[in-house]
């Protein structure tokens, strides 16, 4: 009997200890690395094509193990996660990819990232196209947030088999000649639709809209939704209106399959050969290949984009300050963005290098892609890359772009008339910019 109270006390202590442990438990969990290799986590989206490069790097650096997260996820899933990790001060990878449209937002809060200029990055300046290098710099030029990976030279990918079915030329030179301008592209599309192949001419109007916008903006104003003083110019930038009107013509002609970009239906439509053309920035070739699958190998080819080239997309690699292995992460980022790294990524998944040395390298200029019927991707995408004019992206670029893209989509789906759609685009873009 005398034992009983003591046992109860022990129980009390146990309960209290458990409660403390449980409440404190979520604080732990840091990887206490001993003597073994350190693990570097790389966060990416889409297809960066780094798999082989990791193998090479790990072979050369036995002390480093690399884990990649996020391959295949789209930017809309990736960017909120990255932002939350940065805001929370933990969770982000040691090396993170930042897309050009979001760079401005991250640059506004440079404290989240290691200043690569403090780690010898200044010597690397010549390894990048000048505007690509500058895009990674903060406004005052004192901090380098990210090293450039790829740029998004644009072409037009098309299905040879569907073109043949529709009685159109299938050879890439001949196809390029079909559409010197977007109006010619529409005319070709109308012929294609008239042939009733069971497929649409293009995937979604939003993809085409982005292409035309970035192309037109690059060739005229040099900025899209924001001017270079960060004023919202959705309703006054002629490039936007021009892209809008051309896109409306495309929608009007019934060319679009209305497969919302990056949706499940879009992926299914690739697999089921439901559309014949898609505007493809260099990085899109990897996406097409993984969506359409090996069954479509050799059925795709690449022609010139209507209009005059342009740039869509492209990323940087940055090292968050929260990384526990900053020095090693910086080395890895330098390796992946080196000319050698960019060439490797291009060979694997097609993102076009932002390094002039890489662009000049025969491995790029002479590159062909068997998936795309042996298309000379190096010369198609690389030709204009060095003369590309960058398009300036303002602070809320992603949010504003989302609103305008959604307006395009409502017209495409027949929920709004083009005029209503334009009003929506302007109103909602202003609202998004104010948030």
């Amino acid at each position: 009997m005398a034992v009983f109270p003591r046992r109860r006390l022990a129980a009390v202590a146990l309960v209290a200890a458990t409660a403390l442990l449980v409440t404190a438990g979520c604080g732990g969990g840091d990887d206490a690395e001993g003597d073994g290799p350190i693990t570097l986590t790389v966060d990416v989206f889409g297809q960066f094509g780094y798999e082989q490069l990791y193998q090479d790097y790990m072979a050369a650096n036995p002390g480093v193990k690399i884990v990649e997260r996020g391959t295949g996820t789209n930017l809309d899933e990736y960017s909120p996660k990255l932002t939350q990790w940065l805001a929370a001060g933990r969770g982000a990878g040691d090396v993170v990819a930042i897309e050009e449209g979001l760079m401005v937002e991250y640059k506004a809060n440079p404290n989240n990232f290691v200043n690569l200029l403090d780690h010898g990055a200044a010597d690397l300046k010549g390894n990048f196209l000048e505007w690509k290098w500058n895009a990674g710099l903060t406004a005052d030029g004192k901090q380098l947030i990210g090293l450039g990976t790829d740029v998004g030279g644009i072409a037009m990918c098309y299905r040879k088999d569907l073109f043949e079915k529709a009685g159109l030329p299938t050879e890439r030179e001949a196809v390029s000649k079909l559409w010197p301008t977007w109006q010619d592209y529409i005319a070709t599309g109308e012929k294609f639709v008239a042939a009733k192949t069971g497929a649409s001419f293009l995937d979604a109007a939003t993809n085409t809209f982005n292409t035309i916008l970035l192309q037109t903006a690059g060739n005229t104003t040099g900025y899209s939704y924001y001017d270079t003083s960060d004023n919202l110019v959705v309703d006054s930038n002629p490039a936007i209106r021009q892209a809008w009107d051309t896109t409306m013509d495309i929608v009007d002609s019934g060319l679009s399959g209305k497969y919302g970009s990056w949706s499940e239906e879009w992926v299914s439509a690739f697999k089921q050969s439901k559309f014949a053309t898609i505007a493809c920035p260099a990085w899109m070739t990897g996406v097409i290949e993984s969506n359409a699958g090996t069954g479509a190998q050799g059925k795709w080819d690449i022609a010139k984009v209507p209009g005059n080239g342009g740039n869509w997309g492209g990323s940087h690699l940055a090292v968050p300050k929260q990384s526990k292995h900053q020095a090693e992460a910086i080395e890895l980022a330098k390796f992946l963005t080196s000319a050698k790294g960019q060439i490797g990524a291009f060979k694997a998944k097609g993102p076009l290098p932002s390094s002039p040395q890489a662009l000049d390298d025969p491995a790029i200029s002479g590159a062909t892609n068997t998936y795309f019927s042996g298309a000379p991707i190096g010369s198609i995408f690389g030709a204009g890359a060095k003369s590309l004019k960058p398009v300036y992206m303002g602070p809320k670029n992603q949010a504003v772009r989302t609103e305008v893209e959604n307006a395009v989509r409502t017209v495409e789906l027949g929920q709004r008339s083009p005029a209503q759609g334009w009003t929506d685009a302007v109103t909602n873009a202003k609202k998004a910019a104010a948030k």
Partner: protein
Amino acid sequence: MTVQLDARPPAAPATGPRRRSTGRLSRLDTRYSPYLYIAPFFLLFAVFGAYPLVYTFWVSLHDWDLLGTDHPFVGAENYTRLLADADFWHALVNTMGIFVISTVPQLLAALWLANLLNRGLRGRTGWRMAVLVPNVTSTAAVAIVFGVLFGREFGMINWMLDLVGVDAIEWKSNRLASWVAISTMVDWRWTGYNALILLAAMQAIPRDLYEAAAIDGAGRARQFWSVTVPMLKPTILFCTIIATIGGLQLFTEPRMFNSGTNPIRGGPLRESQTLTMYMFENAFAPHYNFGYGSAVAWLLFALIAVVAAVNVLVLRRLGGSRPGARKGVTR
């Protein structure tokens, strides 16, 4: 020791030579250890419930850029802006719409299912387990599968509609259709769960009530409505409140239902954007406005409290309007 009941102070400790020291300890023990026993819940609640609640409220009073370092205090500005925000009200209507068209059929179906399971079926346990299976599957997986089923062009539902000569329905870009599609996901997942809870309550209803009702000449349907349902009222109330909380916080199903660029909008015209999605859209991508998102979270909290209270009142009133039935049963 003899039988010791819970929730009673333990029997007085036996007297002995060391009585003084152990006695004091055990008095302390008697007085305080019950609090320690229940402390884990409250500690956990304080950390994971109360603190986030208060912190969210604090954030909602600031202009808080998720990545920014400065968070100026703006008072109720986020709330006043929110109340004038058409997209907020739009999301509210979506949430309530999906909630109503999912919860009502769900609870009715659960009641019906529970009644069936309550009969003398062969392999009863198997059937009862089976209704819970949808609840065990991952919400995200369910949403993805249903999202594909409800596809515009490649979806099975539209394909089947086509077989019977019905035109394809734009499940994702038609507001009402998207509500229905999302409701089917919710129902598929939660009907069995509610049915089991109702079944447990049904089994606690004394058999003699049914015998008495049968002697009075009540058929199966009459027994169901006049005996089973009134006796289940507290359980139905419980299920309704749980469904309210879940329904108004609906996120995964509509989020996964919408794929493609910026799925958090629930479609280009926000057809199926719920309040939690709107909260996410503002607090995280693409706006990163943590203060505004927190204000949405707090209004959602208030809304759930109001709707739950209305549920309780309505269900009480329903019971009160049929005093005869109720008294006849409980006596």
